[in-house]
């Protein structure tokens, strides 16, 4: 195997070749379907949102979304928050593998990096579709950063984390496909930088909203910890789901049950912490707050004034979160792979309910001047969001197969486990 060429360029060639040129008809069909959804989303975006800029048309513009001066951020930023969390949790497998030296996790750690790359791509695209002048943003942001603005810090840490994970993934593939262990000289500094970065991207994302005096419901010091806690529930849950699918569709790829079991510990623990933080916020808002704006926004969030779906989502998070915790600690469930996957799916739904609309929208309703403009995303917005997600899943799909193939070269065949 090691005669296959050993420079980095070969590795990149290997990844591209594996991603595009190998695979059965099912794989190509999936990729094609995702590509079509992505292209349709892009078409919607160019046609609707940026017609006035790209095509010089008189009509079009963000006015076709349900966003308005009262609710300037909507579904795009909501899902931005969720996927930042998923990206941050990509490092969990890496920590288990390289900090605690768990051999079984070493086999799957690369999948966490692939997930982080795909999630960050989704996140950056969600920002691009949300802002009004994407070309200016690309030129101006790096040119004159205003480091007092959290958005710039977010841009910096997100691109940094993306680069870090791409490097990590490529290096892993590089060594594994030659059937060599990853050198300690690389992995120790890598994990030392990447682990705080992972917490950092989510903390900075929370800081974007946390300190805004204009939006009292975000003025909670618990916001950033709550983001991180629920991120460490949803990210590993998605990883488990990906592992399960990989086991099913990639021949010869087997994951030890201990990986599932230990990841479930992380998920349940994070869920408990997240639910506890929610409880703490509920207590502060309904027992103590004297600020009328905060109280009004909390009533929109928990009791569904003006916007019933928001309260439904919030109670979905609380209900499903508690259900996932209880199921996760029942031995009959956590002793089977299917049970663990079921808990993971519950967790993903619960955290999507919590992290998306219920974080962003209550900050705007009622607005700073007491105006109430209920926000319901339009079909166009949802279509663009789905298109962006399709690109993210496509990236996941394209990168995961070469990465897992390299892992299999090292661990499942050839000269066996050296490491």
């Amino acid at each position, binding site marked *: 195997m090691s005669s296959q060429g050993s420079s980095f360029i070969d590795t990149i060639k290997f990844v591209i070749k594996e991603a595009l040129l190998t695979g059965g008809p099912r794989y190509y069909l999936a990729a094609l379907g995702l590509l079509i959804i992505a292209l349709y989303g892009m078409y919607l975006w160019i046609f609707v949102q940026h017609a006035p*800029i790209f095509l010089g048309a008189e009509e079009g513009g963000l006015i076709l979304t349900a966003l308005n001066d009262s609710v300037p951020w909507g579904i795009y930023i909501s899902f931005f928050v969720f996927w930042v969390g998923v990206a941050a949790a990509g490092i969990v497998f890496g920590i288990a593998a390289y900090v605690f030296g768990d051999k079984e996790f070493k086999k799957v750690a690369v999948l966490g990096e692939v997930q982080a790359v795909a999630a960050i791509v989704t996140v950056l695209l969600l920002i691009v579709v949300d802002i*009004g002048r994407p070309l200016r*943003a690309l030129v101006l942001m790096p040119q*004159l950063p205003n480091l007092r603005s959290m*958005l710039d810090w977010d841009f910096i840490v997100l691109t940094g984390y993306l680069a870090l994970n791409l490097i990590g993934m490529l290096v892993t593939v590089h060594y594994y496909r030659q059937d060599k262990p990853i050198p300690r000289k690389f992995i120790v500094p890598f994990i030392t930088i990447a682990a705080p970065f992972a917490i950092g991207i989510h903390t900075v994302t929370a800081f974007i909203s946390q300190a805004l005096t204009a939006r009292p419901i975000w003025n909670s010091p618990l916001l950033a910890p709550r983001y991180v806690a629920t991120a460490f529930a949803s990210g590993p849950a998605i990883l488990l789901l990906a592992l399960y699918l990989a086991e099913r569709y990639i021949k010869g790829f087997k994951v030890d049950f201990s990986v599932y079991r230990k990841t479930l510990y992380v998920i349940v623990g994070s869920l408990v912490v997240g639910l506890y933080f929610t409880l703490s916020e509920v207590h502060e808002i309904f027992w103590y707050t004297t600020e009328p704006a905060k109280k009004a926004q909390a009533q929109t969030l928990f009791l569904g004034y003006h916007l019933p779906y928001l309260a439904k989502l919030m109670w979905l998070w609380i209900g499903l979160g508690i259900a996932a915790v209880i199921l996760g600690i029942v031995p009959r469930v956590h002793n089977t792979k299917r049970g663990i996957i079921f808990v993971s799916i519950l967790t993903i739904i619960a955290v999507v309910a919590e992290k998306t609309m219920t974080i962003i929208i209550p900050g705007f309703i009622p607005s700073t*001047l007491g105006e109430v403009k209920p926000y319901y995303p339009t079909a166009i917005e949802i279509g663009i969001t789905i298109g962006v997600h399709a690109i993210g899943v496509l990236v996941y799909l394209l990168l995961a197969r070469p990465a897992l193939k390299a892992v299999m070269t090292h661990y499942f065949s050839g000269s066996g486990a050296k490491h």
Partner: protein
Amino acid sequence: MTGQVDKSRRDFLKAAAVAASTSAVSFVAVSRDELKKMLVPVNLSDFIAEAAEAGSPLERRAREREARLKEWCRAEADKICSSMGEDSDACREARKRCAMIKVKGTGPREGVRFAMALDVNKCIGCRRCAYACVMENNQGRNLGIEWIKVLEMPREEMEVIYANMDYTEAPKPNMVYVPVACMHCEDPPCTMVCPVRATWKEPDGIVVVDYDRCIGCRYCMTACPYGARRFNWAKPYVPVTELNPNMHILGNVPRQVHVVEKCTWCIQRTRDGGVPACVEVCPVGARVFGDLNDPDSPIRRVIEEYGAFVLKPEAGTRPRFFYFFGPKRTPPREPGAEAKE
């Protein structure tokens, strides 16, 4: 082993050569003028804009914008004239306004600190200031943008969250009317959060937006405790026959699509020594505008004589837009209401 190293070094050099040639080709392939315009290095002195002298970057941009606007205006006027006839009023009006277009880049005068105050006892909630603002500042008529919002609040408790801005009848005896626009805060949160420094506070206290830099992320709208910023969700449309030809590059030049705009205290008037349109138009004289540093200015007299307050002091932004309860409401209240109090 050395062969390995040499090989990777060769690969690296190859990759560098490919990257350099690709970027060179793409640099030429993309329109070079456009690229130069976008990549022009920016220094902070452009934005502080104390440069009132001719030849400052702001002046230069103002002149460029003026030429572009005139061109656009003439084309619009031609359309009107060809459809309505050369002798029609609309055509003559449009041509007149096109000829008068002047875009200024006036910088702030030294030692000036603008502030505004409003007599809550006088304001009758007629919203004429909001209409005047729309006309003066060329706000997009198709988007319904109004920089000034007038809140109707109960007399007992002036809490913003209970305010009503969709009232149809005014004045009512038990209500006060509180017009809210940009407060031009001392510590504006909106300028802090802007990721590309497209908005900043000028030395004379006016918070401005550079429409050519704004990327439309709407973070400033999220950060503003007074809801003062407006976003152009579509291409704003201003009829040429209603265009205000007296423009400032940071103020009321017609806006582009997907940029944020806000009240600038009519920078095109006040920098030349005038007062904002809302002050001029107010039928009851509720608004007072002046220079905080000038002991003889009306704003100082009002603050010292009556005492003033600001909205949402807890936001910690120190607004320079004051409210005060002056001596008397101009239109007499209904006698019944007076007795009840």
